[in-house]
C-alpha cells in the first residue's frame, strides 16, 4: 500500500477518514475493508485508531468523517449532541473475563454478573485476588462499570478498593499487567485474540449475554461539520452493512484465531438488542 503515501502530504480529494477504537484496528480488519472499498468506489479510506473518547472528540472537532466505536452510552450522547447521524450496527462479539489459571475467585462457569460478584467477594478475604481495570473510559471500561452496577455495587466504592487496579491504559497494556499481577480483567475478544499467545491468563467467562459487545458505525453530521466527506461516509456505512462485508465478518479471523473475531450484525438485531433497521437499512 505504498502508493498511498502522498508525496505532498496533502489529503487527496476523495479521502474518507475514520476515527476508530484500537480494538477494531488490532484485528487489521479495517485494512482489508479499506482496500476493498477503494476498489469498489475509488475512495481512499484512512483510519486513526485511538481511545473511544478521543475518537469521538476528533469527530466533534470535525476532523473525521466516520466514527466506529463500541460504547453505546457514549455513542448515544454523541448522537444526542447532534454530532453523529446514520448509526448502523455492523457486528458484535463478546467481552470475556480472563484471569489466572488457578482462578482463586472461582469465577469459571459463572455468568457475567455473578463472576464479578465472586471476584469482589473473594478479593475481600484473599489478597491474591486482584482486578485490573482499563480505567480509560473506553468501551471496555464502560462495560466493566456497567457490570459492577449490574452486580449491585456502587462503582465509586469498587474504584477505591485495594484489590482494584486502574491501569489507565490500552487493552494490550492492561492484559500484560493483569498477567504480571495474575489478576482478572475484562477484555474485548479481538484484543484477546491478538494477545493471548503472550500471556499465561485464560478466559474464564465467555459468550455471556452481559458481555455482549456491539460495534457501530456512524457518520459525522454535515450540518455541524460542513466540510466532512458526507458522500463517501454514507457509502462507507452502506458498505459496512452490505452483504459483502457481512460475509467477510462471518469468517474473518478464523485462520488466525480459530473463530471469527466478529459475528455479523445482519440478522442478529435481537441478540444485540437493536432495531432491525439499524443492521440493514442503507443510509441515503
Amino acid at each position: 500500500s505504498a502508493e498511498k503515501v502522498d508525496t505532498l502530504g496533502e489529503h487527496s480529494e476523495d479521502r474518507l477518514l475514520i476515527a476508530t477504537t484500537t480494538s477494531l484496528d488490532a484485528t487489521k480488519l479495517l485494512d482489508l475493508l479499506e482496500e476493498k472499498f477503494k476498489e469498489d468506489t475509488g475512495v481512499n479510506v484512512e483510519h486513526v485508531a485511538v481511545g473511544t473518547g478521543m475518537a469521538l472528540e476528533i469527530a466533534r472537532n470535525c476532523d473525521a468523517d466516520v466514527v466506529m466505536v463500541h460504547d453505546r452510552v457514549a455513542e448515544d450522547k454523541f448522537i444526542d449532541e447532534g454530532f453523529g447521524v446514520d448509526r448502523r450496527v455492523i457486528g458484535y462479539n463478546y467481552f470475556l473475563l480472563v484471569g489466572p489459571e488457578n482462578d482463586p475467585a472461582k469465577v469459571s462457569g459463572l455468568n457475567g454478573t455473578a463472576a464479578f460478584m465472586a471476584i469482589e467477594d473473594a478479593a475481600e478475604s484473599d489478597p491474591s485476588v486482584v482486578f485490573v481495570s482499563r480505567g480509560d473510559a473506553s468501551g471496555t471500561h464502560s462495560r466493566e462499570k456497567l457490570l459492577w452496577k449490574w452486580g449491585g455495587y456502587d462503582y465509586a466504592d469498587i474504584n477505591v478498593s485495594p484489590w482494584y487496579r486502574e491501569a489507565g491504559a490500552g487493552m494490550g497494556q492492561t492484559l500484560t499487567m493483569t498477567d504480571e499481577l495474575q489478576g482478572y480483567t475484562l477484555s474485548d475478544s479481538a484484543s484477546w485474540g491478538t494477545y493471548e499467545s503472550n500471556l499465561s491468563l485464560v478466559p474464564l467467562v465467555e459468550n455471556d449475554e452481559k458481555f455482549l459487545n456491539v460495534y457501530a458505525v456512524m457518520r459525522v453530521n454535515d450540518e455541524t461539520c460542513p466540510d466532512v466527506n458526507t458522500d463517501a461516509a454514507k457509502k462507507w456505512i452502506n458498505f459496512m452493512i452490505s452483504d459483502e462485508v457481512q460475509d467477510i465478518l462471518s469468517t474473518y479471523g478464523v485462520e488466525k484465531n480459530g473463530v471469527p473475531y466478529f459475528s455479523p450484525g445482519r440478522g442478529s438485531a435481537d441478540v444485540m438488542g437493536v432495531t432491525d433497521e439499524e443492521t440493514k437499512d442503507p443510509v441515503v
Partner: protein
Amino acid sequence: MNDLLTGVQTAFELILAADPEVITITLTTLRITFSSVLIGTLISIPLGAAITFREFRGKKTLISIIQTLYALPTVIVGLLCYMVLSRSGPLGDLKWLFTPNGMIFGQTILIIPIMAGLTIAALQAIDPIITDTIRSLGATRLQFLKSHLREARFAIMAAVIVGFSRAISEVGTAIMIGGNIKGHTRVLTTAISLQTSMGNFNLSLALGIILLAIALIINLIMGFVQNR
C-alpha cells in the same frame, strides 16, 4: 530476553526481506524527521543566535523559558498542534491534520526549544575574544553568524543531533497529528507503539533496532563530517 534475540533476528529478516511495509514506514520516518530537523535548524539557529548576541530585558528569563520547554511532553505538543490544525482550529484550512506535513509541523515545534537552547549554549561557550576578533575584522551580520557557527561547529552539530534524536524517537506528536495511518503517516515510533500494544514485542524491537540503525548511520556521518 528471548524477545530481544528474536527482535534482532526479526530486524534482520525485515531488512533483508525488504518488507515493503517496513520500507514505507522507514521512508516516511526519514522524510518527516529530516524535514522537521531541517526546518527546526533553520529556525533554531538564527533564533538561538539572536538571543545569544542581543542584549535585551528578560534575556535570562527567556532562556529559562526555552529550557523549560525542553520538558514539553510530546503529547502536549501533539495536542496543541492538533487544536491548531484541526478543521475547527485556526490553521484548519491547511488540511494538515493526519498528514505528514502536519507531523513535520508538530515535530518542528517540538524540537525548536531544545535545538535553540543548545545553540545558545554552544554560542555562549565561544570565547568572547573570538567574538571580538570577528567583529573587529568587519564581518557583516551574516558573516558574523557563519564564523561563530563554524567556531562552535561541534556543539552546533551536537544540537542538531539532539534535535534529530528527539524528532525520530518521539511518538506523542506523531500519533496525535499523524494518526498512525498505515501507508501514510505511520512512522517507526508509531508502528513500534502499535506493535507493542498488540503484544508483538519482537516486532517492536525489530523496528526499534531499525530506528537505532538509522540514528547510528546519521551519527557516524555527522561524526565523519565533524572530523574533516
